[in-house]
């Protein structure tokens, strides 16, 4: 686009991550793909801190996130790796080591008597204050520019951490009542934490790694995990919040169930993006799913190629897409690898595949009004936008695949 009077090229301003995210949520196209690798505890490494220290100190946890974001330039803070926070606040004990995130040591529920003693934890219990403080600091310091995603374990994952994963899975078969009561306690425990996080400016992400098909059967997911997760999401929807659900591991057999929770964004792991798009992409914004193993072990070229492919597939999702990793980054992921991932995300697939910017090879020959408007933005790859997204207006293909003038 050129200024009619001066002929100067008009350059749009780059959006902030929060602006990008806000547009995505209203079915609009941001200036580039929203990129949120699950940095979580790796943030500590990126900031030269120890994860074990960060999970005990809200200020450190926030500092790790801020420094990691400044280093990588990703589009949201992600607090944090530790899916046992509610169970720990309810009495399960965790082993803490300086260089690792806490590991479940002794589940609190051994028998029915233990179950009867379970209470909704105060917000001062366990390490909940650490999360609340970190959220508050991030929102206060950068919450006008960067979304603060806070991970809260979904009921199934908390129940497993209250009882021990194996025992809980056995309960689902041998003692469904006990399993139901555990789930209910876990669900109730999540409510005040979610409410308080919202009040501190967080955008809630429900995480349910232990409910994936790698751990539990699809039938178990439907019977035990889905209802409580759905109720929590319904509750957040009453506040008109957009909720992300993250389930890592194998999720192909439960994709429809994950969509049935009502989650607005689904962060998923081991399913090809195209398959997720085909099955639920008309209802849910997809968040994924470059394998963290690629970032851990792959070389720069491989990371860039895989990331570019994910962008290519993901940006075709009708409800929108957030480029992410399928699961959280391993703590020891090299910084250069994360930077290669970010570079691929920001330059777009065409550039990554060695084609000139704006080249649409492999894309439907189409443009949309938003792509046309973005032509000046120097982020050329949205000219590949193949979406039939609302607001895209009439498509005006021409020979070069460029918007008609």
């Amino acid at each position, binding site marked *: 686009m050129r200024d009619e009077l001066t002929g100067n090229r008009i350059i749009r301003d*780059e959006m*902030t991550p929060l602006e990008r995210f806000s547009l995505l949520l209203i079915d609009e196209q941001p200036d580039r793909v929203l990129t949120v690798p699950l940095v979580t505890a790796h943030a500590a490494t990126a900031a030269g801190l120890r994860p074990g220290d960060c999970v005990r100190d809200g200020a450190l946890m926030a500092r790790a996130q801020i420094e990691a974001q400044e280093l990588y330039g990703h589009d949201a803070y992600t607090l944090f790796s530790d899916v046992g926070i509610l169970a720990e606040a309810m009495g399960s004990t965790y082993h803490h080591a300086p260089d690792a995130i806490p590991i479940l040591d002794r589940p609190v529920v051994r028998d029915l008597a233990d179950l009867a003693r379970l209470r909704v934890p105060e917000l001062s219990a366990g390490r909940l204050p650490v999360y609340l403080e970190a959220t508050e600091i991030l929102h206060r310091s950068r919450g006008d520019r960067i979304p603060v995603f806070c991970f809260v374990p979904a009921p199934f994952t908390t129940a497993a951490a209250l009882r021990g994963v194996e025992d809980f899975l056995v309960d689902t078969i041998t003692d469904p009542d006990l399993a139901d009561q555990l789930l209910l306690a876990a669900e109730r425990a999540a409510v005040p934490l979610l409410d308080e996080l919202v009040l501190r400016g967080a955008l809630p992400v429900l995480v349910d790694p232990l409910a994936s098909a790698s751990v539990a059967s699809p039938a178990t997911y439907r019977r035990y995990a889905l209802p409580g997760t759905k109720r929590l999401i319904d509750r957040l929807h009453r506040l008109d919040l957009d909720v992300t659900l993250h389930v890592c591991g194998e999720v192909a057999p439960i994709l429809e169930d994950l969509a049935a929770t009502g989650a607005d964004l689904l962060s998923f792991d081991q399913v090809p993006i195209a398959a997720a798009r085909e099955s639920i992409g008309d209802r849910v914004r997809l968040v994924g799913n470059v394998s963290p193993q690629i970032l851990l072990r792959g070389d720069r070229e491989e990371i860039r190629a895989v990331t570019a492919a994910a962008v290519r597939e993901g940006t075709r999702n009708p409800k929108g897409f957030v480029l992410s990793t399928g699961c959280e980054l391993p703590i020891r992921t090299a910084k250069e690898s994360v930077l290669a991932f970010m570079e691929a995300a920001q330059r777009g697939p065409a550039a990554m595949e060695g084609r000139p910017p704006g080249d649409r090879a492999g894309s439907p020959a189409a443009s949309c009004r938003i792509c046309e408007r973005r032509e000046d933005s120097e982020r050329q790859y949205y000219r590949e936008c193949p979406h039939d997204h609302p607001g895209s207006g009439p498509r005006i293909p021409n020979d070069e695949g460029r918007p008609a003038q």
Partner: protein
Amino acid sequence: MSALERIDIGTWQRRFLDLDPDEVAGVHYFRHLGPRAFSRYFKPPSSFLGYGFRRLRRLHYDPDPRALRLFSFMLEEGERLFRARQSGMRVVGLMGDYGAVAPLLFAFPDVTAFYPDFCYWTPFLTESEVLLERAERRGLGADTCYVRAAVGAFTSQAYWPEPDLVAASTGASCDDLAAVAQVAFDAGTKMMFLEIPQRKDPAPWLTATRFISVAGQAPRQAGLLERLCEIYRDFFDRAGTALGTPVTEDRVAGSVARFRELRAVIAEIRTLVATAPLCPLPATEELLVQFASTHAYGDPAECRRILDGVLELVRERSERGVGFGREDDVRLYWVNPPPDPLLHVHVERTGARVVGTEYLIASALTPLSEGDPVKSIARAFLTGSLLGSSAARSETIVAGIRETKAEGVVISNLFGSSHCGAETPVIRRAVEEKAGVPVLSFDVPKPAPGEISSQVQNRLAAFLEAIRARRGRCATS
């Protein structure tokens, strides 16, 4: 008399979850599109925090859902514009006219309007300089008022969709607004400029100009009304071409009639707020009511429903003698009330109530007369402050102070504001001389996280103290 308490954001969140979910879910904007999942907008302030509206954490709110609905309607306006575009409506920006063009524009079918200028609320509501930094990079720095925030919104295209058209009033307007309009134009926005003539005051040296007097209004040049009407009729032609739809006389009459009724509702709310022994609506909510007069937040039908609810609430409270604060709160008249709700809340917390306001949207608050709709719009616009002299504006303010029995006047300017800043000394002098009430003027500090500046707090406290002391002196003398 009994006092109501404002509630904090956490309390609103809890209470909101106790509201009937079906009732909440039934509240939609753009109802002509049918209820859509996206058009639900009624939510507590906490729902906006994660999306950057950080100031909301520090505020205190009217505890009634009818007032909250207004708040959420306003905060949802940005999304509403994108949804309008997605639903096939045309999106038109209006700049610098305040209340004149919007009722005319809404006569076009499938259109919505917004004021980019009102983006000056955003840095305060978000406690953020993102938009101001962008404006600075485009050459509009601290010597332009915070209305420059609109530049950052134009250039990022993250706050509203690219408008189908922006109709910007220039001429007798503010040069800060003109600067913003220019940057929007340079950024490729499709603009239409309306050259607004100045309303002059009679002066001995204006021998060639004939002036006329109209009851209750400042004198003006003969023919000015007709000139404005011509401009607006021309607007219909040009906008019709730009939007690809002509407009009919019936639709114009219908749209102006709707705004006439809307302004009548707003006028009644304002009167009750000024006259009830206890203030029946907090200052921020009342300001939001006033801003509705300009463009009905882009959805006149829903805006009317909301304002009817607020009017009902204010009437109920007035009849029952229920309200905020105390009967002996200091009665303040606020010139250029700032777009910082924390400042409003602070003023009320320190024992004052706002009984009247005057600012550049005043022309949108003027009642619309019956008869020729275009003339009625033009007539109301001619009463505004922006196109007239500072002396005429001072007269309006003095009249407002007398009418509302205000005990003190606060003039707050945004840093860098040229028009408002330049008028302050003139207004101050007129108020002190003619209304005989004390004046406090200050610049509104740059938006920043945290409480408002201690300097402003101290000056306000001292000012209110002086007014109370004055009361004592008046009583003894």
